[in-house]
């Protein structure tokens, strides 16, 4: 029997699910290998059956409202394996860049007025903050290669495997000129690879969209750039774009 798979989204840009939809050469293979229970971006069909239980659930997006929190908990109950898809689901996404800073409600009200009542919102948090997550596939958005590598692994009950090395490795594979050497604050050394060093390939610094790499030495990165023309708040800001919810761990050099 084909495994039952669901694709869901919370707060995000739909980029991760769209990456799957945009993997034209493999899309039909991917969808044929499973029984899609729900993929609202692509289909209006919802197959309940089996009490709504699913073998494999991919969730894109971060959690920003109590309603989403409830839905997420409900999904967790219905899924055997839950995979956080993309940087929003894994780390909270760009919308989590102010994690740990006060004044969420002020910020919220600056955007939505008092009449607004449909959602009860809070600072964006990764899925992990509410439910146990079995695996993470980061990326803003995920890279098709990384998804297509891990998807069949998950179907075989093998764990997700991510590159354990930073963007610099892939950057050198492509023979790019190093931007950090030109004193441009490239986050490549602190960021997990998997994107094939997209940004340095175009002579633009990595902004860290795949989240922190285990074993990255952010302290040295920061120290190095402080010796150049940069200031701490500038660097802190850059790191927060995508490492937001993990900022403490990253700074501690975890």
């Amino acid at each position: 029997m084909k495994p039952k798979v669901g694709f869901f989204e919370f707060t995000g840009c739909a980029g991760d699910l769209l990456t799957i939809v945009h993997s034209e050469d493999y899309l039909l293979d991917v969808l044929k290998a499973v029984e899609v229970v729900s993929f609202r971006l692509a289909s209006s069909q919802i197959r309940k059956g089996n009490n709504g239980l699913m073998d494999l659930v991919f969730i894109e997006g971060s959690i920003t409202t109590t309603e989403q929190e409830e839905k997420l908990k409900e999904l967790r109950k219905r899924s055997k394996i839950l995979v956080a898809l993309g940087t929003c689901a894994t780390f909270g996404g760009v919308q989590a860049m102010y994690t740990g800073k006060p004044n969420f409600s002020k910020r919220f009200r600056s955007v939505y007025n008092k009449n607004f009542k449909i959602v009860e919102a809070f600072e964006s948090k990764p899925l992990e903050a509410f439910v146990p997550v079995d695996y993470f596939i980061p990326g803003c958005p995920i890279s098709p290669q990384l998804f297509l590598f891990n998807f069949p692994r998950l179907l075989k009950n093998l764990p997700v495997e991510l590159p354990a090395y930073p963007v610099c490795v892939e950057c050198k594979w492509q023979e790019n000129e190093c931007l950090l050497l030109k004193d441009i604050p490239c986050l490549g050394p602190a960021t997990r690879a998997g994107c094939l060093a997209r940004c340095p390939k175009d002579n633009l610094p990595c902004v860290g969209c795949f989240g922190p790499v285990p074993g990255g030495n952010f302290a040295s990165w920061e120290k190095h750039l402080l010796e150049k023309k940069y200031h701490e708040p500038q660097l802190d800001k850059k790191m927060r774009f995508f490492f937001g919810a993990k900022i403490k761990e990253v700074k501690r050099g975890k």
Partner: protein
Amino acid sequence: MREGKEIRIDSVARVEGHGNIYVRLLKGKVKEVRFEIPEGPRLFETLVLGKEPSEVLNIVPRICAICNISHRYAAIRALEKILAVKVPPEVTFLRNLMHYGEMIESHSLHIFFLALPDFLGYPDAIALAEKYPEEVGIGLRLKKFGNYVMETVAGRMMHGENPTIGGFGRFLNKEEIKSIRDGAEKLLPDAIRTTELLRNLHYSTYAEEGMLFVCLKPTTDEYGFWGDTVMISNGDDRTVEEFRTAIKERIYPHSTAKRTLYRERPYLVGALARMNLLGERLHGAAHEALQKCYSLSWIRNPLYNNLAQAIEIVFTLEEIIKTTERILKIKKPPSIVHSKKGEGKGAGAVEAPRGSLFHYYEFKDGLCTYADLIIPTAQNYNAIEKHLTVAAENLFFSSVEEEKAKLELEMIVRAYDPCISCSCHIQQI
């Protein structure tokens, strides 16, 4: 149909993001129609505060994956205006190219994967593919090409950083440009077939209602997706800045998205608006296709948006061929234009696949102090609800079965191709 009834369609499928339809019937009348957006807020307008221009550009495309290029392009236009950066024409050509790529990607995704299954009675394109492999094949090819163009020019299918303020991090080489040109040439017949395919579909008439149309006025006499003036079907022309203040964004309790009115009237943006306002400017195959398809229903019925998108795909492919030829004449790749300016304010606009998109920023000491982003779907909200109301009136007091009626409502929403992720991020601060 029963009195005092409530009808809900939760999480309309095959749209980007979460949207619910809510209809309340009372005493033989449609009492209330709401298109609700319970999507989680992301507060982009606060995320860009305190950021440098290049950092704003890192962040804002993440509003939406489908039209990330439009966001990037609109932001670049605004930021370059503020920073007084003037890029050489070849940079503009390449930017237009990436934007065309997005039009094809977004429109073909919408036509084949989100809308067409409805018309032919399938839950999704996968199911559709069994019976109509050729048609889905066309869709896949077009979408793949659109993605290819975006990936090649922008660096990634989504959120590629290559298009930057003042130019491109890496200008494409001739081989890449040629392969884009060749791809467009090869796909033109597919695009024309798409218009034929859509022309022969049955369009229901439940939601016919006249509407104001709005789009950007191209700087030339051609059809196009960029401009600094807004064109309104009542005859008004407004600069982008004027228009921004003229439309009032309001927050409704049932929606995380904001919505706008022009002179207290709902208006419609997107391919259908562009076709109605600029269709006469088309040439070549796109012109021919429009001639064959256009009817007066186009100014009343939102379902024709699909067909308008198909014609835009034809137009876009023809434009890609012309634009690549221009780029191929370039001798030396342009380098990035830098700016020292750190203060000012200004708006930039482009026609995103779903309609006019405005980015407005203010900068002080090199950092962003204010942002206002007005997204197509937000502008279409009131129009969507208006059309839903008309349709609900026609449907729920007729012999149409409820399930069918619900599908008709969903089809109207899908015809607009609302991009809900986008619309949740509009805001004034």
